[in-house]
């Protein structure tokens, strides 16, 4: 097991290196750079080329690509993300608060999704092919179909029209004022959570159906065990693993992938930071951001695999 963990951890390094190379190159293929982005906005056509060259030199953009890459990588190894090319502030500072926001939103959305998905999925599986099953399936397929940003707009609109109330539009960290914080974040969490609950519900339903047909469930019933006991002790334990996997993997993507929802709710999360970063050609910031999101994804992936081996003794890794 220890060997397996080590092997998996080491396998992350080439993937992350690949992510780093890919985003490094992608960003440099995008036309324009940070200096142009800055001066073009201020009637930059008249800005002298020399001045722009000086700016580029300050940022190290005049060096060859591989030097830039090695410098960046050397920083990453020492956990130094460098300075944002646009603001000049340390990237760790720029990302900190936004990461807190995105993390909290992702956690809330996943909690909502899990709490809804598991009972709904079980219910649908137990009542397979009845109206309950159809209702749950339509509920979950609708969740997949509705864009969460549209759901967000409808939520805001509904509150505005019915309660004449708008959620706070300025972010307050949880530790400053928990009430304001939750009053703002619960709505995007609901909009996003609904969508992910749909993914989980479908998974829960199908694994539950599969497990319920297993021999050991029949044996348990033949023994005359209560259905309730069979469900909680025998079926759920086996059926829930894939559901938790799906939800945790989605969680990793929620961290950086909520660009549109953040836009609707005016949240300055990691997703919006990425869009800003690209628009400003802020290479260092965008690179760090993508690497962070990719790392989060790989770590969650890894944690899920380890948890699997731990929870399911039938799985043994070499």
């Amino acid at each position, binding site marked *: 097991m220890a060997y397996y963990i080590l092997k998996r951890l080491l396998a992350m390094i*080439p*993937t*992350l290196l*690949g*992510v780093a190379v*890919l*985003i490094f190159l*992608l*960003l440099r*293929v*995008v*036309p324009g750079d940070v200096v142009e982005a800055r001066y073009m906005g201020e009637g930059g056509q008249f800005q002298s080329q020399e001045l722009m060259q000086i700016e580029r030199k300050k940022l190290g953009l005049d060096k060859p690509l591989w030097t830039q890459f090695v410098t960046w990588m050397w920083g990453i190894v020492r956990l130094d993300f460098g300075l944002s090319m646009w603001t000049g502030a340390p990237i760790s500072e720029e990302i900190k608060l936004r990461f807190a926001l995105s993390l909290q939103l992702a956690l809330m959305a996943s909690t909502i999704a899990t709490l809804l998905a598991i009972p709904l999925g079980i219910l649908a599986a137990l009542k*397979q092919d009845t109206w309950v099953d*159809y209702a749950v*399936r339509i509920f979950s*397929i*609708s969740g*997949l*179909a*509705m*864009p969460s*940003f*549209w759901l967000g*707009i*409808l939520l*805001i*609109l509904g509150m*505005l*029209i019915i309660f004449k109330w708008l959620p706070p539009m300025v972010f307050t960290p949880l530790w400053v004022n928990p009430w304001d914080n939750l009053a703002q974040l619960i709505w995007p969490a609901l909009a996003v959570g609904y969508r992910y609950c749909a993914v989980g519900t479908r998974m829960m339903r*199908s694994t539950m*159906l599969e497990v319920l047909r297993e021999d050991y469930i029949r044996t348990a019933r033949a023994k005359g065990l209560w259905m309730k006991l069979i469900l909680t002790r025998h079926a759920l334990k086996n059926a829930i693993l894939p559901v938790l996997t799906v939800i945790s993997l989605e969680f990793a*993507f929620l*961290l*950086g*992938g909520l*660009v*549109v929802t953040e*836009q*609707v709710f005016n949240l300055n999360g990691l*997703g919006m930071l*990425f*869009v800003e970063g*690209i*628009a400003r050609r802020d290479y260092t910031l965008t690179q760090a951001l*993508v690497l962070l*999101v*990719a790392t989060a*994804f*790989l770590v969650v992936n890894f944690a899920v695999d380890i948890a699997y081996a731990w929870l399911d003794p039938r799985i043994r890794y070499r």
Partner: protein
Amino acid sequence: MTVTPHAIDELAGAGPRAGWLAAVLNFARRRPLGALGATVILLMVVLAASADVIAPYDPLATDYGAMLTAPGPGHWLGTDAFGRDVLSRMIYGSRTALMVGLGASLIGATLGSLIGVASAYFGGRVDLFVQRIMDVFFAFPVIILALAVVSILGTGVGNVILAIATPMVPRCARVVRSSALSVREMPYVDAARASGFGHRRIILRHMLPNVMAPILILGTAFLGEAILLESSLSFLGLGVTEPTAAWGLMLRGAAVEFAESAPWMAFFPGLAISLAVFGFNLFGDSLRDALDPRLRTQ
């Protein structure tokens, strides 16, 4: 993933000689939800194809005398901030959505399955290398990858199609590869190799047709997702650009600003997106159930 004779029966209708009408009726009887999805898709295709005839107004025509008109006899679903007819823009929007959805899933599924089959066929180092590259793409959230491609290529329908196809390639490749791995061990592939056929012929003529079921399933699943992704990109202003009629674009800007006084602007295009994706998902689910007996619920 294999296609059983039973599954083929189900797709082809009651018997080998039954006509297509019987096949359709049979599918509708066995899978009412799938038939519902197919109906929605059909409706969308008809709307998109006959947009020029059906749409009551020109989707691009501005009418500053009728800005933000509420739904009524003149404009059934109201007008937007430029006085453009919302219903007409929605009808033309189905054209954009279908074009992007079909284009992106076609490109994504084709490239992805070619990579997947080739990776499984060659195996060994090639396979390992391809899989590592796919891992890299997997570590990006879908929308981030699409946004990165759009910022390189620029906005517009064609570029949006490519941007949406990009994240689909690795996902398709992975699924198709796992199916192709079992196909590679089949005697007929050995036979083809023994007959001295080239790699290309074996991959395209012998292996690809036998992994068509998962490709078809993925392709339909991608369609709905592509429509959703297109609307997200357009909503951010990084997808299809004005004045083209696109659902995501209709939800942007004024639709949010005037949401309280003119809610129809935000409501109807979102409904169209949801309905379209709903239709494709329902149909895709039924197709999966029909083609993949392992996932069947009965």
